[in-house]
């Protein structure tokens, strides 16, 4: 994969020559800073489609267009404006000027070809300022992978501009009662293609992905008392992971996928336990009075944030993964619960209470700065996107509990509508 070498610049893009050696160190244009506008890309019509299945080719382009339109970092030149550009293949300088005159900074061009059920996509991203190729890539697959190819390309383009892959192949697991019972479901990151994973007609709660997207840990009342289960959606494989006394709730995988932290306990107590994801004896890691629940590992795997009521109200605490060095994190909140540690390790999103309504807040661990992300209704269960740029959360602002995603420039979008939908868990890629 060849990538352009970009140097950070707010308005003017300082640009070094496009490099064709794959081993080149990658420096990316930062466009995620607040207030910065999107990178505007013009998408050509890909007129060359030799031998390509026409349906698959148009699906691919439509999917790519939709994905790029959905991001906070990339904007597409509208088709109306793109049509104003008169193509002149013999004069690339003039072409660049014409594209720039409709607002484009980059041009995505390429070809689609195919034979039989094979589809080949070749793309180049031209920097319209320098005239260099900033990125080029060839994708090949069967026609039924047309959307996956489009999502992969969109992911790489977002990666080029942010240093982080886009969300387009990511999935959100959640709990929905739309079938009449709380079951596990999964959908694409934008809410499309919802799929029911369990039909237990019991109560399913708190899904958590393994980092590789192969496994879901969750709580179920399937056998009467709440127990912790491991579920492999691809095969429908289900096994009990913990049937300790107590709630067996809120599982969370360690970043290496080897351990699962969860909450359970005897005699009314609830503490944090850790159990090998492959099964084994749970080890208790908190020894507080009252309720300790909702563990979430730090991205380094060295720490666990959790909710404890030991000081009266529920507040966030952090400890070393072995249970040592417990310290309180939240002091400004009447209530703090449902911590989700951002992939960069710097921020923790959580649910707080403001004027008797749940609201999402983030805590910046570098300077202990709390930022409220207020919204209408009750807002809870924040969950970071795999790239850490976007939050999913649950809100009842439109009536029933629904899952929303928001980006950090404050654009919330409802992605579920049917029934109540809660407890989103986001993973980069389902294997």
């Amino acid at each position: 994969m060849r990538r352009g070498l970009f140097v950070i610049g707010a308005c003017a893009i300082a640009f070094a020559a496009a490099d064709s050696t794959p081993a080149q160190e990658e420096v990316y244009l930062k466009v995620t800073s607040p207030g910065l506008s999107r990178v505007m890309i013009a998408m050509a019509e890909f007129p060359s489609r030799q031998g390509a299945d026409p349906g698959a080719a148009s699906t691919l382009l439509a999917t790519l267009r939709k994905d790029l339109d959905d991001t906070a970092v990339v904007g597409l030149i509208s088709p109306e404006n793109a049509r104003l550009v008169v193509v002149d293949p013999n004069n690339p300088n003039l072409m660049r000027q014409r594209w720039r005159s409709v607002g484009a900074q980059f041009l995505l061009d390429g070809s689609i070809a195919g034979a039989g059920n094979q589809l080949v996509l070749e793309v180049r991203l031209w920097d319209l300022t320098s005239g260099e190729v900033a990125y080029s890539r060839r994708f090949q697959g069967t026609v039924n992978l047309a959307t996956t190819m489009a999502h992969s390309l969109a992911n790489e383009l977002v990666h080029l501009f942010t240093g982080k892959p886009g969300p387009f192949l990511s999935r959100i697991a959640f709990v929905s009662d739309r079938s009449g019972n709380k079951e596990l479901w999964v959908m694409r990151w934008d809410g499309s293609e919802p799929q029911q994973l369990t039909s237990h007609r019991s109560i399913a709660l708190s899904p958590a992905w393994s980092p590789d997207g192969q496994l879901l840990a969750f709580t179920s009342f399937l056998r009467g008392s709440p127990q912790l289960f491991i579920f492999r959606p691809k095969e429908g494989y289900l096994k009990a992971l913990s049937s300790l006394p107590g709630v067996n709730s809120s599982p969370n995988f360690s970043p290496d996928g080897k351990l699962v932290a969860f909450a359970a306990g005897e005699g009314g107590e609830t503490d944090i336990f850790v159990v090998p994801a492959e099964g084994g004896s749970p080890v208790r890691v908190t020894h507080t009075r009252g309720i300790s629940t909702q563990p979430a590992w730090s991205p380094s795997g060295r720490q666990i944030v959790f909710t404890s009521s030991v000081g009266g109200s529920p507040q966030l605490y952090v400890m070393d993964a072995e249970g040592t060095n417990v310290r309180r994190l939240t002091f400004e909140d009447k209530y703090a619960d449902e911590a989700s540690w951002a992939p960069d390790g710097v921020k923790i999103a959580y649910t707080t209470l403001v004027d008797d309504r749940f609201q999402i807040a983030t805590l910046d661990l570098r300077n202990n700065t709390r930022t409220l992300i207020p919204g209408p209704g009750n807002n809870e269960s924040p969950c970071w996107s795999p790239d850490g740029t976007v939050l999913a959360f649950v809100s009842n602002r439109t009536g029933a509990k629904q899952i929303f995603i928001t980006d950090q420039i404050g654009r919330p979008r409802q992605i579920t509508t049917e029934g109540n939908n809660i407890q989103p868990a986001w993973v980069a890629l389902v294997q």
Partner: protein
Amino acid sequence: MSGLWNNKLLVFALFVAVAFGPACAHRKAVVAPEPQAGAETEKPAPQPAEGGTTTVSPEPSISAAENPESAIRAGELPANLEEINKAGYLKDVFFDTDKADLRPDARDLLAADAIWLKNHSSVKFLLEGHCDERNTEEYNLALGWRRANAVKSYLASLGVGADSISTISYGEEKPFATCHNESCWSQNRRAHFVVTAR
């Protein structure tokens, strides 16, 4: 089945419905608000709901239905667990917001529950901890677990055999009342008895 028998069954069903109805604390019923802390002499007065749906067991004890006190003395219980649970011999107790401490009114109710349980020492039962909807789902699961076990400990301290008591938390997953204000929330912060063996 003869018409005569059908009629008898119908009359009997109606009788049972009337007799059992008022005692039913049906789980979906929106009952009167529970007593406030400090109102020690007040008893909750669950109102009937769906009394007509009562099913007829083969040999229900009519005297027990008419007068639970006599049933306590006689040690007679309906043969059917569903009937026992509908009769409401054991009174649910209620909690303050975000608390698992037993209020004075709860202690009074549990004292009566304990007497009944000691008079029916073969009875085994499940204590369900329930919560209102105002915490997160997972915190409520833990809170309901505390509530169920707080009741278990208190009953054990009053001499009820701990091995006859199971506990479970449903958190906010099985609300008794479904509106979104205190009149329902106060009903949902509860420990609920379910007799599992007679």
